[in-house]
């Protein structure tokens, strides 16, 4: 166990080192931060003084060592745009993203397990086939397109005039397929409740929840089909195994066989894939937040790119790197704990 932890720690340090060097290596060429900070009328001598004061004229290695030394102490420098510590800016934007990811994860877990298990138990039923069909369509729709369609249907509204209005059923069908479009599709809303520090939550008020629904559903829409298909495939494989047949032969109730015996082993690969997908979720928050103008880390990162706000870009990459490394380690740990056949020290099996 300890050997495994040390190994993971070395791995994590290596990854963080690579990220920090990469993030830092391009900064020399990455726009001119001084131009972003000052107005047109500031003379060249003044600009040079600012450059000197920020240490932008030092050699690469000096700048990197200074950066690394400070970063280890939690100091990632000042954001050129916000004029405050970059870590502070990230901390202010982090809760919005975390709440979005949390809400999306909740949707995924609540829907993928029952649907996946059902379509594995009854693979030939029409409902399972419908779920499978919908899920492959779901995989094929990019997350930002789902978001746009949701905005069109629930925030702008759709008026259907396809059916003849004069007949009763036509009018009813038109009404049935038309939507009002009063869902909010922009930002986090006005009704945020402060929990602690920078953490204003959307989860406490009706208005906040309404703002959260569309972004969370969009973000969940890309992962949900994946997990449904994964759970179904794994469950069907487990159902063929000897121990499930034995449990059935013993006369244990089917519900117990499904949910106690089979589901446990189904969840093993789901945990591994889930860990990898958390990383993908972070990437998709950039897209989702852009569409919904959700003031989280993803939107902040894109803005930082456009403003050539180097300290903020570098800090974002480092923080995302930490999130990835930590989640991957936790997933490996959980996997080792729930599956005793795995040797954590990583000896070849």
């Amino acid at each position, binding site marked *: 166990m300890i050997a495994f932890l040390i190994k993971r720690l070395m791995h994590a340090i*290596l*990854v963080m080192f*690579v990220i920090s060097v990469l993030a830092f290596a*391009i900064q020399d*060429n*990455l*726009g001119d931060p001084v131009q972003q900070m000052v107005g047109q009328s500031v003379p060249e001598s003044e600009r040079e003084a600012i450059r000197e004061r920020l240490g932008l004229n030092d050699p690469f290695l000096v700048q990197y060592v200074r950066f690394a030394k400070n970063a280890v102490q939690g100091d990632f420098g000042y954001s050129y745009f916000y004029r405050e510590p970059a870590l502070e800016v990230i901390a202010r934007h982090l809760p919005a993203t975390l709440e979005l990811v949390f809400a999306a994860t909740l949707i995924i877990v609540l829907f993928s397990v029952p649907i996946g298990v059902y379509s594995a138990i009854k693979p030939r039923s029409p409902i399972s086939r419908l779920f499978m069909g919908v899920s*492959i*369509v779901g*995989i*094929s*729709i*990019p*997350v*930002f*397109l789902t978001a*746009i*369609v949701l*905005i*069109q249907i629930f925030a*702008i509204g759709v008026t259907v005039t396809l059916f003849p209005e004069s007949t009763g059923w036509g009018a009813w069908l038109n009404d049935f397929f038309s939507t009002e479009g009063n869902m909010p599709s922009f930002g986090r809303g006005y009704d945020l409740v402060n929990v602690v520090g920078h953490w204003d939550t959307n989860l406490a008020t009706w208005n906040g929840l309404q703002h959260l629904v569309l972004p969370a559903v969009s973000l969940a829409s890309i992962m949900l089909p994946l997990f449904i298909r994964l759970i179904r495939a794994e469950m069907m494989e487990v159902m063929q195994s000897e121990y499930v047949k034995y449990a059935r032969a013993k006369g244990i109730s089917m519900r117990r066989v499904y949910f106690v015996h089979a589901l446990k082993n189904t969840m093993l*690969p789901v945990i*591994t*894939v889930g860990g*990898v*997908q958390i*990383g*993908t979720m*972070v*990437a*998709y928050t*950039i*897209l989702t937040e*852009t*569409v919904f103008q959700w003031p989280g880390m993803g939107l902040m*990162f*894109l803005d930082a*790119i456009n403003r*050539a706000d180097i300290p903020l*870009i570098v800090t974002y*990459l480092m923080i*995302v*790197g930490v999130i*990835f*490394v930590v989640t*991957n380690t936790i997933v490996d740990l959980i996997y080792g704990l729930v599956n005793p056949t795995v040797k954590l020290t990583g000896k070849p099996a």
Partner: protein
Amino acid sequence: MSTTNNSSQASASPSRWERLRDSYMWYSFKRDYTAQLCLAVFICMVIAAFASPLLAPTNPYDLSQIDIMSSELPPFWIDGADDRYALGTDAQGRDLWSVVLYGTRVSLLIGFGAVILQALIGVTFGLMAGYLGGRVDTILMRLADIQLSFSTLMVAIVVGALVKATMGSAFYSQYAVMMLILIIGLAEWPQYARTVRASVLAEKNKEYVDAARVMGLRSKRIMFRHVLPNTMSPIFVISTVQIANAIISEAALSFLGLGMPETHPSLGSLIKSGFDYIQSGSWWITLIPGAVLVVLVLSINLLGDWLRDVMNPRLYKG
């Protein structure tokens, strides 16, 4: 396995056609209407896209054919449509049908290009890692692990953003197609490398490899001429999925403004430019290219599903 492969290389082409006709693949294709429909749709879209200069009524790259006065016209089934523009026009007054045709061509070009690049890198690295083993294996797979622990889309977004910021938008837009192929190709090679490595590990202890080695063939020849042909079926299966992924990645990058410029749009940048007008009621500018993108990706994904069922390789999970 190896003997059939060697004889297929030696035999003439007509017998290859007969072999295809007798194969299980053709048998299952004849009975799978979804696969037939998807292949038909996909081929139609590819032909339409690459014949776009012939099919499109206007050339969207030619500024003299664009009339800003005819912008945001709706498609034909909505009141206020113009006969000249069947699917309506976008915010710049370009004929949407023409723009979508040209955009599909750009998207397909980048999708195929990126997959070819990632297959070249991934297959070579996967073969080397699996066959040579040892330190090469450790280094290459550690590299793949690190890159995969970040999602491929994340890598593509970050690299795209940094390259664009470094080189300036003007330069980036000019070489956007090459840039996107490079970025998406470099971001996704580990998928191929891991799949190939897994099947190489399964193949390399078989007798035909031993035989080749005893005959004194060089490693390079054994890797590419003997082992590689026997790892083709998983490569085919993931290739379909990877093309779909690459097209979606390209669309995502373009949607974030890190891809094709609006003057030379792909499906993704059409969706992006239309999104600004969705609140004013012009939904068709964004949703028509969106629908085309979904149909394209869906048909590729369904073909990939069918291929996986037919070839049934042991894919590397996780």
